[in-house]
């Protein structure tokens, strides 16, 4: 009998997200096994228990998913998992805490595509504001945009926290090769005048850009908002918007809403889960891989 496909799903949280469970099962994993309240120090032993209990052939039908809510923790767990393995006892690992990596990838890829379509431009050199940018999606999207050459500023409610997150993004996720700045909500009115791209990744129900901001955003080209619950984070931007012009903006900026982004996110997560089934060699997947896949998806649907 052929060995079954097993996905070991690790989370630091009390429970897995049913979202990830459905996605994994629909991608073709036969068994999805939950491991909850997992601590970073336990990852090595768990991973070694995964790899030493199956033959090299069966390990190709085995993988690990890392969930949770914290990007740094998930990234560290991914590294720990990778380091706990050695050839031929290796399995694929995919980290997507809170779905943030695939959501960020979907958003940045969609923004890139709109920039290209409407303004014949790329992210390179663009002034970008990551509003509500201290959360998991904000962090991952800021890093992806910065790696694509944008001048990114993470905006939070408190400057010291925003600065701490910017440092984390630069040092940990960007490996010192990017230079994300920090700012606070109090200065949005100033920053927005020169912003060319805006990501809104704040908490649901909080308006980050009002009509006045939109009217004064003379350089704005694309604004994206991942909030699906009204009111949206950017006034006038609807969850269904997919490249529609934002009312009241002098520069003809276009908006991307949560459902347009969610559609790419969904396909991205599904493909990464499938990659772990299809790939002959083990793969270690995080936001950068999610972004590659999301770019392909956006290109193929153009």
């Amino acid at each position: 009998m052929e060995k079954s496909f097993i996905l070991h799903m690790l989370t630091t949280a009390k429970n897995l997200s049913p979202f990830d469970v459905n996605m994994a099962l629909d991608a073709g994993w036969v068994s999805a096994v939950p491991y909850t309240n997992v601590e970073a120090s336990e990852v090595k032993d768990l991973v070694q228990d995964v790899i030493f209990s199956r033959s090299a052939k069966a390990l190709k039908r085995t993988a690990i998913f890392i969930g949770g809510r914290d990007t740094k923790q998930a990234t560290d767990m991914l590294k720990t998992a990778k380091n706990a393995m050695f050839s031929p006892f290796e399995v694929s690992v995919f980290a997507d805490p809170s779905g943030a990596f695939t959501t960020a990838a979907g958003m940045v890829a969609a923004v890139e595509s709109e920039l290209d379509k409407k303004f014949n431009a790329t992210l390179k050199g663009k002034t970008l504001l990551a509003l509500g940018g201290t959360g998991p999606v904000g962090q991952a999207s800021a890093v992806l945009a910065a790696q694509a050459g944008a001048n990114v500023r993470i905006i939070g409610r408190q400057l010291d926290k925003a600065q701490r997150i910017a440092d984390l993004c630069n040092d940990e996720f960007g490996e010192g090769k990017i230079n994300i700045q920090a700012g606070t909500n109090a200065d949005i009115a100033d920053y927005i005048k020169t912003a060319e791209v805006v990501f809104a990744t704040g908490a649901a129900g909080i308006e980050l850009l009002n009509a006045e901001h939109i009217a004064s955003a003379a350089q704005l080209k694309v604004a994206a908002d991942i909030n699906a619950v009204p009111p949206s984070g950017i006034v006038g931007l609807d969850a269904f918007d997919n490249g529609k012009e934002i009312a009241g903006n002098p520069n003809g900026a276009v908006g991307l809403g949560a459902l347009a982004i969610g559609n790419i996110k969904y396909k991205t997560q599904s493909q990464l889960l499938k990659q772990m089934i299809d790939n002959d060699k083990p793969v270690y997947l995080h936001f950068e891989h999610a972004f590659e896949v999301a770019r392909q998806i956006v290109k193929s649907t153009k």
Partner: protein
Amino acid sequence: MPKRSILHMFDPMPNNSPFDINMALDTGFDVLMPYSNVKLESIHGLTQDAIFSRSPSGIKRTSLFIGGRDMGLAMDMMNAAKQAMFPPFQISVLADPSGAFTTAAALVACVEKQLKEKHNKELKDCKALVFGGTGPVGIATGVIASLAGADTCLVDHMSIDTANDAAKEYNRRCQSTLSGAMAGSDEEKSALIAEAEIIFCTAKAGIQVLSADVLAHAKQLKVAGDVNAVPPAGIAGIGSNDASIALASPVGAIGIGALAIGNIKYKVQHKLLELCLSSEKPVYLDFREAFSEAQKIV
């Protein structure tokens, strides 16, 4: 490939009940996913995560089960899950905390059948007592019997306040008309059962609640049902396999034992899970649907 059926099992306790897991797999769900220590506040987010990640065809193959030990919490969780959904993102939900809804439904349906067959009476003509009436099965039994029209009283063995509080809370939640009573000693029990026509026994396993001597005081008793399968039986004279046994005293009274009731409970839970699995439209199932299915089965 058709999408596999998934049952997400939300439970406020540290673990899901293996009873429910066996039942769900035997009904034909392809995949079960346990969620433990779930709080009421988490239900909204968990439910939305469950519905937003599958296509409309996948949604039909996705259901929620709500377990736990607390009937009120399970009902609140069911409401929270319903409120988190909207068309077309809707999936079926079955609540059966501690298996209490299906056990109580089976108990009341079995008693109702014997009442009709042996005494030509309806629940609405009868006074009913629920011993062990403040536990999950007891409360659910009381609510179902009360909503069916029986004049029903929840009996606690320690505290009148506990009994009255439970009656009041569930009258408010379920629009039932329960009362409360306390009976700890044999004297108190003898006095309380003098006018009862129905006795439900849902007390802890392995405890005899009504001895033969006490039971002799139940001059009006028509039917007694006991869900305790662990000896000694909760009501003296009723064996756990008895589907309809004539009690020694009072004359004419019928007893129903735990395994006879359990057999119906098992079929009811199976049927409800099957409805979640096969229904084209989402269904929301609690003690009410459990009782109407139990009535059909008996």
